[in-house]
């Protein structure tokens, strides 16, 4: 056990954890965040994605000691600093989250965490991705319900919003 300092959703946290514990478990259990999900534990599905210094990164194999000073952002903190509730309830949605809602780009929604964060990361690197770039940017995240066609539409909608600003 060690004391580990983490910067999550704009706030500093001090957690007690075995330094080898994957970040996913610390975020879910110590910090009670729901965005990152357990899916496979071996970086094959993208359900556990977080933004690490703005870049979509699977958290299920990433030892918490390896984070150092990187800024971690989860779905809960995507729209900005988390408001009153620990789950970010009441905080406004990020434009990518809004695009997913508007396209109703989900069925069970379990993969949404990885999808939304991959899209945010992609659009930061490439604000105007074409269809192939969207597919490449989302490739690491699996959806079993078959909502990928909607997700692609949501990413395009978010990119279009980007463009008009």
């Amino acid at each position, binding site marked *: *056990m060690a004391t580990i300092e983490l910067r999550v959703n704009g706030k500093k946290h001090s957690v007690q954890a*075995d330094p080898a*514990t*994957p970040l996913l*478990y610390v975020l*879910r*259990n110590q910090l*009670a*965040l*729901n*965005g990152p*999900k*357990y*899916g*496979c*534990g*071996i970086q*094959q*599905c993208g*359900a556990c994605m977080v933004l690490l210094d703005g870049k979509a990164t699977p958290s299920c194999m990433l030892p918490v000691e390896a984070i150092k000073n990187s800024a971690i952002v*989860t*779905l*809960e903190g995507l729209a900005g600093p988390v408001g009153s509730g620990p*789950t*970010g*309830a009441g*905080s406004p*949605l990020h434009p990518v*989250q809004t695009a*997913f*809602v508007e396209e*109703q*780009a*989900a*069925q*069970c*929604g*379990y*993969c*949404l*965490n990885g999808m*939304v964060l991959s899209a945010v990361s992609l659009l930061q690197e490439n604000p105007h991705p074409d269809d192939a770039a*969207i*597919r*490449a940017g*989302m*490739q690491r*995240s*699996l*959806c*079993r*319900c*078959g*909502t*990928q*066609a*909607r997700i*692609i539409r949501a990413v395009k909608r978010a990119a279009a919003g980007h463009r008009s600003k």
Partner: protein
Amino acid sequence: MQSSRRNFIKTAGCLTIGFCLGGRPYRGSYPGAAIPADGSVTQPLSAATNFWPGEGDRINSWLEVLADGRIRVLTGKLELGQGIRTAVAQVAAEELDLEMSQVEVTLAETDVTLNEGYTAGSGSIENSAMAIRNAAATARQKLLELAAQKMKVPVTELTMAQGRIGLKNGTPGPGSENGIRGLPFKSESLTFAEVLEGRQLTDEVRLPVNLKPKENRRLVGKAIPREDISHMVAGEPVYVQDLRFPGMVHARVVRPPAYGARLLHFNEQVVKDKIPSLLTTVVNGSFLAVITTDEYQAVQAQQLLRENSQWSDGPALPKVSGEQLADYLISLPVQTQRVAEKGDSTFLAGDTTLSGQATLKARYSKPYIMHGSIGPSCAVALYDENKLHIWTHSQGVYPLRDSLAALLHLPAANIHVKGVPGSGCYGHNGADDVAADAALLAVAYPGKHVRLQWSREDEHSWEPYGSAMVMEAAARLDGSGKISHWKFALWSDTHGTRPGGKANNLLAARYLEKPFTERPSGFSGGAYRNSEPYYSIPNQQVQAHFFDGPLRTSSLRSLGAYANLFAIESFMDELAVKAGKDPYEFRLMHLDDPRAKEVVRKLQSVTQDQAAPHTHTGTGTSTGTHTGKGTGMGMAFSRYENRKAYCAVAARVAVNPQTGMVQVQKMWAVIDAGEVINLDGIKNQTEGSMIQSASWTLLEQVHFDQRHITSRNWDSYPIFRFSQVPEVEVVVLDRPAEEPLGAGEAAQGPAAAAIVNAIYRACGRRVRHLPVAAAKLIG
């Protein structure tokens, strides 16, 4: 139901949970159409549904009026990502002229919602939503009558909006019933709760009920957005995986290395030494588990115990793979069932080689396929003061409760099962098994909430798969190119081993010190679902052969229909080629049902001129010769279960001649699911069904060696990633005057056949064994 609880309005969140009711069977349907619509004969709701006499007959079995004037709808179904929460709220809000935000939905929970069996078989709209619609419409009448008495005015002068009842304004404008913004009342109005003065509506729902006229509907049939998506996208706690209770502990089960392996020895000291937060090791026969306070330490303890335990080998699995599997499966002993016989069924009688009289014969096969939920199964269980509480994403809370009662030798009345959404399941995955595991552990470690999260490997290698199947078809064409004789045989393991109130269908039951050893069994009809062609063929014979296969199997989306329709609709395509007919024309020649014809014709018009860009290979001319240039269009049709939704699917594929790799470029579906409740719900289900079916068809098969399943992660069991996903387009034919039909499974079978038919058009190769093997498409 506990009538005392239901008869009075209570504020949300302070209900005590009751325990009552014994075990009951779980099947039925909602033949609402059998009741004369003129009201000449009425009957209680329960007589027309799958509920027990008297149960479900009362309005308050389905909806409650809340103190703040909103209503709570109670469905015995669980939200699985199919959007049922929204659909049931829509029908209730429609009949009671509420806004969507004024309806909350309680999902399946024992002793809270009715026993609606399983959330399965595309039945939630057909059963639960229609019962709720009738209950809400009855509630409307009763509320108006009560308000009329209270206000001393005739019912006809009253109207209803936003949870209030008042005198009609006379001049409907923006604030009318159709507008609902602002209130349409002349003077003061009463809330539903004020009308009821603290009571609930306990009146009987008798069918037929006068429903809101279709032309006045403002919610039903529209693409009402699902509100839960905005919660999911924000990372709010939605799933059973997100439940957290004070003092909750974490568990992991150490699964055996093989189905039949037995635990010989394990070294408990290793985990005691190395896992600081270990609370206990649980061992019951060959059921071995750990409980810790820290979740990641439970994962580590599971791994340690796996490395420090010895197991017997168990019986070896057969050494077969790929297409040999089909030969192996039909060599197994079978029990045979006649599914259909019509006309001259002596066609090919005794002709085991299917030679001679047939114009065409073919054998098709599909492998074992997994549900492959993205979130592995999870449950929380608490055993406290002789009561067992389970939080589960099971599709059937009541049957699970009764199975747990049998497994644990507890009275069902002492078990409370609450449904909480999980990751999409598409049928009977590990949800019930993980709940049983958690229940065993909670009983062994009472007083704490025990959370058990299956690993990816647990889910991949222990879930009950969709059975591998073999299908043989033979047919004779007459001089005009019509099918005169048809013979179809299928080989399959069971598609129905849901818990169903029995202990032995739960995975852990086989491994206990006192094991339940009977082979899991249940509903047997799934194998031959859609094995009868929906086409008009004068002479036919359909047979189902049941084998006991090597792998654990149960219900996967559409059950046997996926394989049967892959075979039938591929065979129809082959016959069309033989007959020299266009695939659309050939199907239309054999269809009598006008609704079936319309979906096929609509698909034809939607896909006209949709051949691959830069080629000119219109679908209307593709009578058997492939188009060249490596792209092709294919289509298929079915009516799900031959009595539910109609669906025709087209696919455009490109086949790379160097690698044989198939890219599905675009898929189209035309679906008639009767009256549309939620337009976007049907579209979403149909899009997803096509994409999932395309993944099954092109990529998926469960691999195993003689020891156990070897498909244990997404590398060894790949599914579609974004680069493989086709563009999709869905056309919904709304039939407001028809019964609404479930839509979640309708595209699953035709999508598979449309793809292989397109591959044939693209490269001239006929794929009869799934998944599609690229090696056979080279050149």
